[in-house]
């Protein structure tokens, strides 16, 4: 007897194929949408963090104080991106952040938060959980802004042979990770009287003005201690950019004081500073780089001297 073999193949019905294809498409879109949503959520969080950081920097700005210091602690390792833009009347300070995603990789920088009235001096990217901050007023000759300096827990500075004024700033403000003695090996050496360090500072006859040079980078110039710290804590690109922004604001303020002195001269408060302020406003408006600071500072000192002699002070 010949036994018939069952030749029936495994039958996949149309329904099953259709179900698998549609199911796969749905699962693919679900995974894609979830990933996108998580990414967007993380970006929103980082953008909010950048804005929050800008807001919490407000109390650190100085009023009549000569300096203020504080620190910021993030709940997790965070990258901070400091960017300076020159567009517009005042330019802009852009702050963005990035944190680690679930797989431990750094996310892309968030959408930057923009502030026209802030001046942050730091390297362009900072990384860590704890950030140290201090601020000093910048005057030229009137107060122009509060300069904010930031460095992270991984950065340390060693000030070698610093002038007494700088040493007392470090002591009085209790600046973390900045040493004037017993420096750590990892700290960046900032030399005030010798050369060959990470940062070499050349001072004019013991005054807090002169120039500063980092290894393999452009030389930058400063005219007071606020700008000296700015040059130490930031890269030359950020320093020059923020300085140009500061000069834009100085120009606008000079123009404001010019309007004020004309307005008050009708009220028996004559300063005779109209011509000086007008020239000063034009000079600061056309400021290009820190090499021009010395010339501008001479004008500023002249305006300060004249204002100090007034009974009805302009500023």
């Amino acid at each position, binding site marked *: 007897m010949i036994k018939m073999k069952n030749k029936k193949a495994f039958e996949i019905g*149309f*329904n099953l194929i*259709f*179900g698998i294809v*549609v199911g796969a498409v*749905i699962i693919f879109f679900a995974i894609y*949408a979830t990933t996108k949503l998580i990414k967007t959520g993380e970006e*929103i969080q980082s*953008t*909010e963090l950048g*804005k*929050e950081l*800008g*807001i*919490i920097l*407000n*109390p650190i*700005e*100085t*009023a*009549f104080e000569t300096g203020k210091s504080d620190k910021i602690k993030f709940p997790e390792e965070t990258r901070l991106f400091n960017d300076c833009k020159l567009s*517009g*009347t*005042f330019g802009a300070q852009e702050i963005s952040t990035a944190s680690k995603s679930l797989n431990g990789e750094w996310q892309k920088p968030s959408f930057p*938060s*923009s*502030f*026209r*009235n802030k001046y942050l001096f730091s390297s362009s990217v900072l990384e860590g959980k704890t950030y140290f901050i201090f601020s000093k007023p910048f005057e030229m000759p*009137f*107060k*122009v*802004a509060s300069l904010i300096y930031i460095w992270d827990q991984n950065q340390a500075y060693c000030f070698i042979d610093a002038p007494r004024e700088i040493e007392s700033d470090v002591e009085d403000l209790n600046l973390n990770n900045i040493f004037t003695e017993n420096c750590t090996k990892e700290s960046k050496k900032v030399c005030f009287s010798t050369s060959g360090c990470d940062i070499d500072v050349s001072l004019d006859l013991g005054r807090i003005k002169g120039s500063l040079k980092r290894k393999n980078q452009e030389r930058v110039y400063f005219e007071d201690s606020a700008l000296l710290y700015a040059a130490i804590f930031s890269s030359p690109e950020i320093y020059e950019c923020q300085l140009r922004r500061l000069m834009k*604001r100085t120009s*606008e*303020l000079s123009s*404001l004081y010019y*309007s*004020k002195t004309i*307005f*008050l001269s009708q*009220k*028996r*408060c004559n300063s005779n500073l109209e011509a000086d302020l007008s020239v000063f406003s034009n000079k600061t408006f056309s400021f290009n780089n820190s090499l021009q600071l010395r010339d501008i500072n001479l004008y500023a000192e002249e305006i300060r001297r004249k204002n100090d002699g007034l*009974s*009805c*002070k*302009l*500023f």
Partner: protein
Amino acid sequence: MMVYHASYFKKAQIKIQQMAFVLVALLIFFSIVALFYFSIAGKGLKESASSLREAEAKELIRKLASSPEFSFTASTCANCIDLDKALLMKYRESYKEFFNLEFLQIEKIYPDSKKIECDKLNYPDCTTITIIDSNEFGSPKEAFVSLCRWEQEKSGYFKCELGRIYASGKGID
């Protein structure tokens, strides 16, 4: 003559139709879920933007009196606004975007008098200086300040009066 009738309503075709209906229903379901999610997420985002805006205005208002554009620097005086400078700031378009504020106003509250907006002609016999104004702004934050100005009477002196500053912040840029 023979006539053949084709049967179009086969079982498979009905199943395809069923499947298509299920797919459309699924699509509608997921769209409703997505709409629901985005409306909640959007509301949360709006809330967080508005709380950031409020926080910024609150922090800024504490510092505004000491900002170089407003501070009275002829003598050391914390929380003193130079009213002469503030009046001139009103006419400077370049500062409209500077503070990231939707609304900024300074008001003289003592001695009490009828509310009059200041300009160069009626100053100082007026009460408010609106530096930044817009049609839409949230509830402004306020702080008490001293308003100091040059007074030409007698042989001239700096006169300070009690005032209030109002500010309302902008959202995330």
